[in-house]
């Protein structure tokens, strides 16, 4: 479990980067919180620097869009998804539960850790 900070510090439309095993981006979309891997699956851009458009974030470099709910890219240049992570709020404090990577027969499955 990774401590993100006070909910009040992350108003709607904002994002923040926290460090888990890898960097994780946390977004507030109209009060709903989402967390995904911060590094774009295309190249080395930080998605927490991206542009929020509804439930998707647009990568700040080459504009691939990722669905915050699934981590799936909606178009080029990204071809691979980013991992999504569970978020919880306790006493007004945001926590991220980093997913672990489990490899099943070559494919990457996810599990909340």
């Amino acid at each position: 479990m990774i401590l993100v900070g006070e909910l009040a510090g992350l108003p709607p439309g904002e994002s923040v980067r926290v460090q888990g095993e890898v960097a994780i981006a946390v977004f507030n979309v109209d009060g709903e919180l989402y967390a995904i891997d911060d590094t774009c699956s295309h190249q080395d851009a930080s998605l927490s620097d991206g542009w929020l458009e509804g439930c998707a974030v647009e990568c700040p470099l080459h504009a691939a869009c990722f669905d915050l709910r699934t981590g799936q890219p909606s178009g080029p240049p990204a071809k691979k998804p980013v991992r999504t992570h569970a978020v919880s709020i306790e006493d007004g404090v945001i926590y991220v539960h980093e997913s672990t990577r489990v490899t099943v027969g070559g494919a990457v499955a996810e599990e909340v850790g």
Partner: protein
Amino acid sequence: MERVTVVGASLAGLATVRALRAQEFEGRITLIGDERHEPYDRPPLSKEYLAGTVSEDDIGLTHSDDAELDVEWVIGQPASSLDTAGKSVELAGGFRIETDAVVVATGARARELPGDCPEGVHTLRTLDDARALRTELVPGARLVVIGAGFIGAEIASTAAGLGCEVDIVEAADVPLQRPLGAEMGAVCGRLHARNGARLHAGTGLAELVGETRVKAVRLTDGRELPADVVVVGIGAQPNTEWLAGSGLDLDGGVRTDEQGRTAVPEVLAVGDCAHSYRDYTAGWLRLEHWTNALQQPAAAVAALLGREHSAPAHHSVPYFWSDQYGHKIQFAGHRTADCTVQIEEGDPDSGDFLALYLDSEERPVGVLAIDRARPFGQWRRKLARSR
């Protein structure tokens, strides 16, 4: 309309095919490309691919979903002429493809030096070019890059990272003057010296020295730079020769309106080959920007099919990026000669910053950022709104 032929099987051509199917065109699509490779992405050719950190598979543009596009591929064969009256495209082999509409996406090619060059002299536009250059950039090799434009600067950066000795020759006093202006061009130019590459500005190429293989580069100021490898990065020119005699206006690229339509009905042009009207600058511009080649086709296809198309406002703001020495350079908008530069954030002398270009009425018309991706994205959108 039953048949659409797309000429040029790279970023803009593939984006056109995808847009045709996404916009529910159900007829026959033929995609003609003269390269023998499946479509691939060019930006990594001067960056990660040249550095050896990504593979040819990684830079492929197609993915598994594209199998559903149902396209007739003609790969490894150039189109040699377009008959706008009879609506057909002829291949170099003589084969004629009848069609109802044509989308020209033949891009651009690297400008070459006139005359024969000794071995060891390269340009960089294609995967084959990158393969050839890559084998020569071994540690300790002395590389001279002619031209400090974005691609030349990226090659210099990648080569320095590979342990080459790098000299860059730029005829103008300051690199990148046309896109960025003298002040910011100088800021970007300083990245070379900071990272161990030598920039020689204000001097041109006089002669390549070497019989069969290049040995040195002689400059107009009389100096001679020893060289094992030379890369000529002096710009690109649109691939439009094959359209000669078609009746299309080919001045500075295939001339089109904002949507990519030429003066000939059902003939459109997109990407690097298109000299298109841009609302943002209220004039014609041929852009050599990845994002333009990716985004322009959807609008062009909508115009062709008579469909509505609405793109986010900031798509109309020209945008490109460049990666050099680990820094991310981003520019959006359009600099005009009368622009002044205002630093909004950070400090150009010490590293990351964001600068605005203001026109004569002090309106922001361009934004440049180094390693400031978040505010850059915000400014790019503000530029769209301020028009």
